[in-house]
């Protein structure tokens, strides 16, 4: 029997957010994903960082898969495992071979996004012994629990082999002895309840048509026969927003208890992740032949770059980002009636810590770097070397002046020259 998971998609047009099986999904590249995970490990050490990441994947994937399976009643465990594996591959995370029963088993992974992405980005110049695929591990244990109607946290998972240390493939062990957990997260109903009314910004006449074209284009993008989405010069995933947010929120809580001196650096590194996302993913798309075919090659006009990036953020499900003010080479003010991060913070995070907020401010800096630091004609190489040179000499600073996670009416970040 074939299951069309696209029937479980829901789009909130007013807020430019996307849901699959009732869970928010966003597009992110391997540069962002690796940096995000690395920051969790930097905060807590590799062992605890990995546990937080597996737990975050477990919680968010359980919620996703429960939502998908509930949409297709009367499925067998084998069919449910098939839904889980095909969804994983379609989202660009690689191939999972789930040889698991009620009490666990062994999962083989091919082209798993994090390990594959790490090898792609760092493999030639660094060594790594700690496994990279916590998301796949958490997803595998959640798939097993959902397949056999087990309570979340009945089982646990660990990655026993990973290609980052030279192994030929990845292997994940799912076994008994998990810890009870609550697979909470954002859903469309609660999102609609708490998100403020939407609004437009400047240059909507430029942005809206591009968003529509992008959504058409991206709607047809899925993992290839390896479960990999290679596009725009990066490895792209459709990812669970709850994964990022659970991981960062859990780390923040631990830091607040055990290492409060690290919170400032932690938040700054989340912003850095957002900056890397904007540069690599937005920049990669803007420099791509696909963009040239859809919109035209960027001429280098800063406004053209800024509006293009805002359109991309919307199409990627980050939220209805808007331009409140833009003065070329001086200032960018971006607003939004919620992003996938601040929505999670509003609904799930503790009031004192307000959860993560990296993508909106970080992307603000990244967008200004793309608009003013890149020569767009002829077509530039959006690569690590260019990113490093721009990041090292970046004249931009950012301030978050309003956020819905604190109960305010909108998210606003102001990017200015130092």
């Amino acid at each position: 029997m074939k299951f069309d998971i696209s029937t479980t998609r829901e789009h909130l047009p007013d807020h430019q957010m996307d849901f699959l099986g009732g869970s928010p999904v966003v597009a992110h590249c391997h540069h962002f994903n690796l940096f995000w995970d690395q920051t969790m490990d930097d905060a807590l050490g590799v062992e605890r960082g990995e546990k937080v990441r597996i737990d975050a994947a477990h919680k968010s994937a359980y919620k996703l898969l429960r939502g998908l399976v509930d949409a297709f009643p009367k499925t067998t465990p084998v069919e449910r495992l098939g839904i889980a594996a095909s969804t994983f591959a379609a989202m660009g995370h690689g191939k999972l071979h789930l040889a698991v029963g009620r009490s666990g088993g062994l999962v083989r992974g091919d082209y798993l996004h994090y390990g594959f992405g790490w090898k792609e980005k760092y493999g030639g110049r660094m060594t790594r012994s700690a496994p990279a695929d916590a998301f796949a591990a958490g997803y595998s244990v959640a798939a097993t629990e959902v397949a056999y109607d087990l309570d979340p946290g009945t089982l646990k998972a660990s990655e026993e082999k990973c290609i980052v240390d030279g192994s030929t493939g990845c292997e994940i062990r799912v076994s008994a002895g998990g810890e009870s957990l609550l697979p909470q997260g954002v859903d469309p109903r609660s999102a609609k309840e708490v998100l403020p009314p939407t609004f437009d910004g400047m240059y909507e006449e430029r942005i809206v048509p591009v968003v529509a074209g992008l959504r058409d284009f991206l709607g047809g993008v899925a993992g290839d026969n390896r479960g990999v989405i290679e596009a725009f010069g990066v490895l792209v995933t459709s990812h669970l927003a709850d994964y990022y947010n659970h991981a960062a929120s859990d780390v923040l809580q631990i830091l607040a208890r055990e290492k409060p001196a690290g919170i400032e650096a932690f938040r700054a590194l989340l912003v850095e992740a957002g900056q890397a996302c904007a540069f690599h993913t937005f920049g990669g798309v803007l420099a791509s032949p696909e963009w040239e075919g859809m919109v035209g090659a960027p001429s280098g006009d800063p406004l053209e770059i800024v509006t293009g990036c805002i359109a991309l953020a919307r199409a990627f499900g980050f939220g209805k980002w808007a331009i409140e003010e833009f003065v070329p080479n001086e200032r960018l003010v971006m607003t939004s009636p919620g992003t996938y991060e601040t929505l999670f913070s509003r609904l799930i995070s503790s009031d004192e810590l307000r959860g993560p907020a990296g993508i909106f401010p970080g992307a603000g800096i990244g967008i200004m770097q793309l608009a003013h630091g890149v020569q767009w004609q002829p077509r530039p190489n959006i690569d690590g070397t260019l990113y490093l040179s721009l990041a090292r000499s970046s004249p931009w600073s950012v301030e978050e002046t309003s956020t819905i996670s604190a109960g305010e009416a909108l998210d606003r970040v102001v990017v200015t020259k130092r």
Partner: protein
Amino acid sequence: MSNNELEALVSDIPSLRACLIIEAQSGALHRSFRRGSVPADPDAAARALAQLARAQADVFGTGEPASLATLEWTTETVLLRSVNASALMAFYFPADVKLGLARMHVTRVLDRAGSLLPVAGQATVLEIPAVPAPAPVVTSAPPPSPPSKAASAPAEVSAGRKLIDYLDANAPDTHAALLRVSLQTGLPLSLLKTPDELSSAEFEQVTQSVQRILGVEQLSL
């Protein structure tokens, strides 16, 4: 100040293979920029170039700054410039770069290098050995000559700075590397930006953090 700033200063000279800022009196390497492989160990080269500058002053019987030595080798040309009484700069170009062009680049860099140069009176004091000493290796335990907050010996101070400079030169996403060290160690960024101030325990923490970031068990500084 870091190697990053030196890199920013010279990165628009595509033919430049390496640039060293050397403390004139001690021969200690103050800052370095390298692009691709460079034949000599930078520390050893710095000491030798400082000796050469002093010998040149003896030849001409003057300690005037702004002297210039040009070393033409089969594969490369090295321009050594005495910037002031405290600082030397050496520039490595491929041998096929025209001397006039190389000199023009050197002049441009010297005009803008002021803030990167060692400050008179704060230069690291090292004995120049007749035979260059092997490069030190820093391991997690015990660290070699860890600086202490109470330490007054400048040679110890440079260990912390060398560690951070090494991180700067080798870390992935270099611009974020200090933040990562801060998060891993819990040490404030302001302290990491003045690595001379690191205590022994802090130096050890930072060393372990640098090893973790670079994915290595020991560091060859």
